[in-house]
């Protein structure tokens, strides 16, 4: 490299950004004609650009949107900061072991806050319906006869969506779209200014609201026998300027059923907490026009491991070693360990004495892993650390180590050029070739079965979805595993996440599970529990 090159290199970088003057451009071009080193430097800068622009744009998990929307709704975000307050030990979170006997048990807490003028109180959009609730009783007959001239439903591009109008009750109107809406899609809902109410007046101004469409129903995996511990956070409710305070009763659940709990807080109108014992959740909100109704359920405590408390709370720092009156278990809060648990794991561990005593302290810090995940009819399979984990519906796990993945020959054929990255130019579509010049063998056209085994006729045991190639060997070769898991429900998902080993097991986070973020806790030797972030 000539001595003058150092002077030129910043200019090469600036030139790539369009930040050089005409004069500088001329100088640089002249220099490049004679200097091989600077040409290489410039090409490598361009290579960096090409490769960074080719990086995929990962899709945010659906749960992220739900989580953000849930928190901004009604200003709840002001009080609910999951990173700080999502601690299972603090009294803000009340965990009760509750045997839910009736399917679809609904606990509705209603805070009624009488509005001052006739308006739309709430709009909710799911893929099969848009529900509009008014803050006063509407003139049902008039609304029915005026029909859809009073409402409009459009998509994000402003296209009008066809729907059928149904007056559900005195205050609720439902627009049922002819074609189902896409969850995550944005729709605009308009209610005309002239909607008449029961008092003979009309809505003074039109109501326009954009909504992100939620899935129609949340259906849990049909792993009815798996013990899924759903630890739902009970939101701390403090009085908003327009609402009265709420005493929220706890939620939650350990049963032999998968249970999802969705506490929804709408300080201005209603607060609804739904606890469903079946895998189906009915997200409907019941509006009861009584001033303040607080429904309290008496929890049935069936386990000594339950942690109880109340919902009106201030965060409380865990006292190291425990305080008098608390569980006499020696030592353990996550903070007592020399090596800290990952933040998301500590949220579960703190205050959960049973879990802490079973897991003990971390052996090492959490590490980044690439996790493969596939849900099955009666459980799921995970793959990382070259090991397949079978998490069965009977609450036990087993692992199959040293799984010989079929990629090895392909992987070894991947990077062969000395510096594929820095020599790339934008016109080159592929910077890597295999030494043999062959295209890598793995392509979507190749059936996983053929890839994974030498069996000429793949046997999928009547399943529509084939196990991922990391899982197929274990699944095929072990009738017991097949019996425990059933068929795969959907293709394998790969996610970059974290795992941590503890004295008594390990914890693995899966932020992209179908139902949101899950944390698998695998105890030594063979049982597991799953925590779902709500």
């Amino acid at each position, binding site marked *: 490299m000539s001595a003058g090159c150092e002077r030129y290199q910043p200019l090469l970088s600036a030139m790539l950004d369009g930040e050089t003057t005409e004069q500088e451009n001329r100088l640089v071009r002249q220099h490049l004609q004679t200097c091989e080193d600077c040409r290489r430097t410039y090409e490598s800068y361009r290579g960096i650009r090409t490769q960074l622009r080719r990086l995929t744009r990962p899709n945010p998990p659906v749960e992220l949107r739900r989580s*953000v929307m849930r928190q901004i709704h009604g200003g709840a975000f002001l009080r609910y900061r999951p990173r700080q307050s999502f601690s299972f030990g603090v009294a803000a979170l009340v965990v009760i072991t509750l045997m839910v006997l009736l399917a679809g048990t609904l606990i509705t807490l209603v805070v009624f806050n009488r509005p001052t003028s006739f308006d739309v109180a709430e709009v909710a959009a799911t893929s099969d319906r848009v529900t509009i609730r008014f803050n006063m009783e509407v003139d049902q007959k008039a609304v029915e006869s005026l029909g859809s001239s009073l409402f409009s439903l459009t998509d994000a591009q402003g296209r009008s969506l066809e729907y059928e109008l149904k007056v559900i009750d005195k205050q609720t109107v439902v627009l049922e779209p002819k074609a189902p809406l896409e969850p995550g899609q944005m729709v605009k809902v308009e209610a005309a200014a002239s909607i008449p109410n029961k008092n003979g007046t009309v809505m003074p101004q039109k109501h326009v609201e954009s909504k992100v469409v939620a899935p129609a129903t949340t259906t849990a995996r049909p792993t009815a026998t798996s013990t899924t511990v759903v630890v739902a956070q009970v939101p701390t409710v403090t009085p908003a300027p327009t609402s009265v305070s709420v005493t929220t009763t706890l939620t939650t659940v350990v049963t032999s059923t998968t249970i999802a709990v969705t506490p929804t807080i709408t300080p201005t109108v209603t607060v609804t907490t739904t606890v469903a014992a079946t895998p189906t959740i009915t997200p409907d909100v019941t509006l009861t026009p009584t001033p303040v109704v607080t429904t309290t359920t008496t929890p049935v405590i069936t386990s000594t491991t339950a942690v109880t408390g109340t919902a009106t709370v201030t965060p409380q720092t865990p006292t190291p070693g425990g305080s008098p009156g608390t569980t006499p278990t020696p030592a353990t809060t996550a903070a007592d360990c020399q090596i*800290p648990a990952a933040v998301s794991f500590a949220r579960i561990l703190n205050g959960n004495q049973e879990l802490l005593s079973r897991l003990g302290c971390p052996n090492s810090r959490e590490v980044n892993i690439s996790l493969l995940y596939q849900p099955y009819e009666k459980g799921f399979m995970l793959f990382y650390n070259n090991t397949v984990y079978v998490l069965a519906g009977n609450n036990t796990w087993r692992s199959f180590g040293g799984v010989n993945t079929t990629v090895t020959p392909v992987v070894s054929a991947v*990077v062969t050029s000395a510096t594929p990255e820095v020599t790339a130019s934008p016109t080159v579509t592929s910077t890597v070739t295999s030494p043999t010049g062959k295209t890598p063998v793995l392509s979507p056209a190749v059936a996983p079965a053929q890839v994974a085994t030498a069996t000429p006729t793949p046997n999928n045991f009547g399943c529509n979805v084939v196990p991922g190639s990391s899982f197929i060997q274990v699944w095929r070769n072990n009738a017991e595993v097949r019996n425990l898991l059933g068929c795969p429900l959907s293709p394998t998902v790969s996610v970059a996440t974290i795992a941590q080993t503890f004295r008594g097991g390990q914890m693995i986070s899966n932020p992209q599970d179908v139902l949101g973020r899950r944390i698998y806790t695998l105890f030594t030797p063979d049982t597991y529990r799953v925590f779902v972030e709500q």
Partner: protein
Amino acid sequence: LPVTVGAARPVTEGYTALWDESLLIEKARLGDEAAFAAIYEHYEKPIYAFIYRLMGNAEDAFDLTQDVFLKAFKALSRTTPDLNLSAWLHRIASNACMDVLRRRKIVRWLPWDPTEHANITPAHVEDEPEYNVEQHEIQHQVQRTLNRMSEKYRLCLVLREYQEMSCDEIADVIKVSRSAVKSLLFRAREQFREIYTDLEERGWPDEEDKTRTRTRKGGQGK
């Protein structure tokens, strides 16, 4: 030599269709949740992807994207009407990521624990049949190179080459002068080249980068 000048162009991939941003900001500023939902809709993917590339994993991307939008919703009422929403959101995201990355850097200096990596090695994601091995491998190397860069250089490079912002826009996001951005970008490119070449020569390590080490409150482990 075909010299093309990289013109500054706004990134469009990942954004929703054109929209009336100023009207929505105005409504969201007054607390209109639906307007904020529309803003969220528009920026969710680009901000998530941006954070994902800065942090190198989905876990952090989830947490920090959530934090960014909640902070934004809370702070929107205190902004001025001439708000540059994109730059502002990227600034909140940048600050959030830089905070976390700097905090984690402290613990990188702790004694090496040989047991730490003993048990866990990454899965071969490439073995999924539907998966493009070549491109993934390169993406993986690019991401690992990014993970090893200093935070400030990483931030500049990602804003310029991944988010495709101009030097002016980057200056607005990170609040430095345009000439400082030019200089940062030059050093960032040099650092990227250096780290990449080094890893290439030494052979790409089998293990994932340990970028998620976190300090716990009030302590730094051992």
